[in-house]
């Protein structure tokens, strides 16, 4: 890790996460064709795009969970290409996958405590329960997959707040959830941003994305095709509709 990279103001010379020329494959299928984007410390940045554009694959590539990847992924100056997923987590990146990956053979508390602490500065369990009161009530549930979809999503987010990871990758955290739960997740993202976490968020719902994000990248066919600062979103809404085909 490069000295002094922490605390550099957003928009400074080196971003917290810099992805350049990223290519990724699942077996023989070439999915990402040169993805370029960056995330500054303290920002909430979204990846928008139609189904199949490669958003999930981009997140999995950052975590080292695709078959093969090439290009460059620099996290605080450290190149993550060729690094094993467990080392990537220990570099300080937390991943909340699209399918949530709640473990049914573990209790709610075991799921919450599963990821090892990778750095100091994670939220303690009391703070997490204050953010997600439902989880406190359901803590003793023996089979975590018995939780409702919304509770499972909260658990999947809570799980990576504990570890001290400073960059959180959230893949469609609002997918398929009721509006009141979506609002709660929105408040949570704002709260963790205030606490200094950096978030890369994949969203289908750009109305929701606009309430939490600083910038938006638009993906199509395995590439980034545009970047829209949140402030410019209203004026570029038509373009965005075109991109997303809505």
């Amino acid at each position, binding site marked *: 890790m490069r000295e002094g990279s922490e605390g550099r103001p957003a928009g400074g010379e080196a971003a917290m996460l810099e992805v350049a020329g990223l290519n990724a494959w699942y077996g023989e299928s070439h999915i990402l064709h040169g993805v370029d984007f960056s995330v500054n410390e303290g920002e909430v940045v979204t990846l928008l795009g139609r189904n199949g554009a490669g958003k999930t694959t981009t997140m999995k590539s950052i975590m080292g969970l695709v078959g093969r990847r090439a290009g460059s992924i620099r996290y605080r100056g450290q190149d993550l290409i060729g690094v094993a997923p467990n080392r990537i987590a220990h570099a300080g990146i937390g991943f909340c996958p699209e399918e949530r990956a709640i473990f049914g*053979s573990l209790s709610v508390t075991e799921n919450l405590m*599963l990821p*090892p602490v990778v750095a100091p500065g994670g939220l303690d369990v009391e703070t997490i329960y204050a953010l997600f009161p439902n989880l406190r009530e359901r803590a003793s549930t023996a089979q975590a997959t018995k939780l409702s979809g919304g509770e499972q999503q909260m658990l999947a987010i809570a*799980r990576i707040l504990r*570890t001290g990871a400073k960059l959180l990758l959230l893949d469609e955290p609002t997918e398929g959830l009721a509006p009141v739960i979506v609002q709660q997740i929105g408040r949570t993202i704002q709260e963790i941003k205030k606490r200094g976490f950096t978030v890369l968020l994949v969203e289908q719902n750009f109305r929701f994305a606009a309430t939490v994000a600083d910038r938006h990248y638009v993906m199509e066919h395995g590439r980034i095709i545009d970047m829209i600062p949140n402030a410019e979103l209203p004026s570029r809404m038509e373009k965005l509709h075109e991109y997303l085909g809505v």
Partner: protein
Amino acid sequence: MFMILGVPGPLLFGQVLLGLINGAFYAMLSLGLAVIFGMLNIINFAHGSFFMMGAFVSWMLLNYLGIGYFPSLILAPIIVGAIGILLEKTLISRLYKLDHLYGLLLTFGMSLVVNGLFRNYYGSSGMPYDIPGVLNGAQNLGFMYMPIYRGWVVVAALVVCLATWIAIEKTSLGARLRAATENAPMVQAFGVNVPRLVTLTFGGGVALAAFAGVLAAPIYSVNPNMGDNFINTVFAVVVIGGMGSIIGSVITGFGLGVIEGLTKVFYPQASATVVFLVMVIVLLARPRGLFGRMV
């Protein structure tokens, strides 16, 4: 002499005890197999060989180094577990991306090589291993005489099975193991060194087999084929209990041992096949086994 269901009481209790002893070995062996299967997704055909090596290592410790039974109970599982770890790192770990069948073939081949090596150096007639002094003798239970060593085997097996269950179901390491059984890449993306966890799990399963081998040494003679006599039944136990289920392995192991013992009393002709009969019935009624989780 008192009779139960037309059978002399001591004969009945004697066979139940023998059944419990066999069941203790079935339970410990199928437990290791189940844990290994759950985590590595391979059917470890070399499990009987590790059991045999446990007995042999304790025999060697005694005859070459003068190290007795109780230290062997700890040392032999560590030594054989280390050998298992070596084999996992050098050979088995290369097969995880391939079909189950390759792991099965490799471990089957390993067992042939290992058993052949021991047969070559020690012959197949078997070597005695004396019951340690404090566990010698028999206890009058009122309704029968129980050899103390046999009672000790049942108790030791129960303790080890319980300890394994606690380690897997009640500790944070066990939670990681269970989670990795469900979705290993995700657990690794949380920062857990999954390849190392897999290696440790294999070493642990092998150590359990070796522990059973040390317990078996004074009962059955120490010989290169001693694992083979158990392993067929043990595979049936794993299938009946449900692949990968821990509690299932233990309960089914003891249960089948007792069923076998009772069959010896009431219908001796079927005692060798009753386990497989049970297997067929269970598979017809519950293809996932008695305690199988959904896969």
